[in-house]
């Protein structure tokens, strides 16, 4: 099997699987009544999934290298960004503030090291 076909098989199969995952419960619960327990659980989906995406990107400096300390510029920057997001409720300010904090923390870290 040529390499070109390998790429297209992966693209189309994963694309289809992703679409079916996205459609799954939207299609199901359009016809079936949602159990109350599930309805209660769904309130927590945004908070938990976004946390599960953000935290590893911040506390791991390399694969399987946990850096839970103030010398990790990404952790410092994320805390600053979280404070900005909480006080200002602005995505732009959060991203700009977080990046500036990251650059400052990297610069300070380089100076100290």
């Amino acid at each position, binding site marked *: 099997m040529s390499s*070109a076909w*390998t*790429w*297209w098989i*992966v*693209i*189309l199969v*994963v*694309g289809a*699987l*992703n*679409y079916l*995952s*996205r*459609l*799954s*419960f*939207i*299609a*199901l*619960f*359009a016809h079936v009544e949602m159990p109350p327990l*599930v309805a209660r*659980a*769904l*309130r*927590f*989906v*945004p*908070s*938990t*999934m*976004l*946390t*599960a*995406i*953000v*935290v*590893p*990107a911040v*506390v*791991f400096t390399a694969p*399987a290298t946990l850096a839970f300390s103030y010398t990790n510029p*990404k952790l410092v*920057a*994320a805390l600053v960004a*979280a404070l900005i*997001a*909480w006080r200002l*409720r*602005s*995505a*732009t300010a*959060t*991203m700009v503030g*977080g*990046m500036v904090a*990251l*650059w400052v923390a*990297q610069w300070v870290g380089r100076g100290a090291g």
Partner: protein
Amino acid sequence: MRRQLALIRACSRPTGSLLTEPPLRLSARPLFRIFSRPDFLAGVREMTPPLLGLLPFGLVCGVGAQSAGATVWQSLGLSAFMFSGAAQILATQLLAAGAPVAVTILTCFVVGLRFLMYSAAMAPHLKALPPRWRHALAFLLTDQAFAAGIRRFRASGDNRNAASYFLGSGFLLWATWQCSCLVGYWAGNIIPAAWSLDFVVPLCFLALLVPTLEDRSTRIAALASGVAVVALDALPMRLSLICAGLIGIAAGMIAEARARAR
């Protein structure tokens, strides 16, 4: 004439009653009755700042596809059909490393399991819409579009308007994603790695996360999820993501039940 009368009757009905109406009658309505231009444009407008955070992510995906030896059409196929940064990066890394097709597909599928949760959370809001709308909006269900859209659906009493909002934000996201992946494919290596621009990606998710932490139960849920995702990091195929989500949800529900009992 009868159609016009039905339309006038439909127009005069208060929008709030949409929630209680049986879905059949709504699907008999023409498409333009559901589409709301102001809400579509509001979705486009409000998606623009979070999109700034997605641009570097798209660049990274494009660079990944290019360095893994994909053609530009394959790179475009990745971004257009998979439409998921995490899956695209994994697929290119695994294929470049010579992993078997089945392993690559399975890994990408497991990382996409979070879409099941997004789908379930969206389901009650899309229930009353025609199937065509449900099928189209499902395709646009990404992390960012979900986080922004679900907030709108919960805040707005009118699912029809919120659906147009979601369509607007999702469409803009899809279009921008294709462009940023293409730019990454052709010119992504121009940006120096020392700028750490890819850190904008978690920052963008953080900006979406903070407003969802509205009460004690959601904060406990997020805390449990954050601890779990680090503790379970060694799990294969990034299963830690979906496991942490489920653990966080369980913690949130327990916290909520306790708060109610008090």
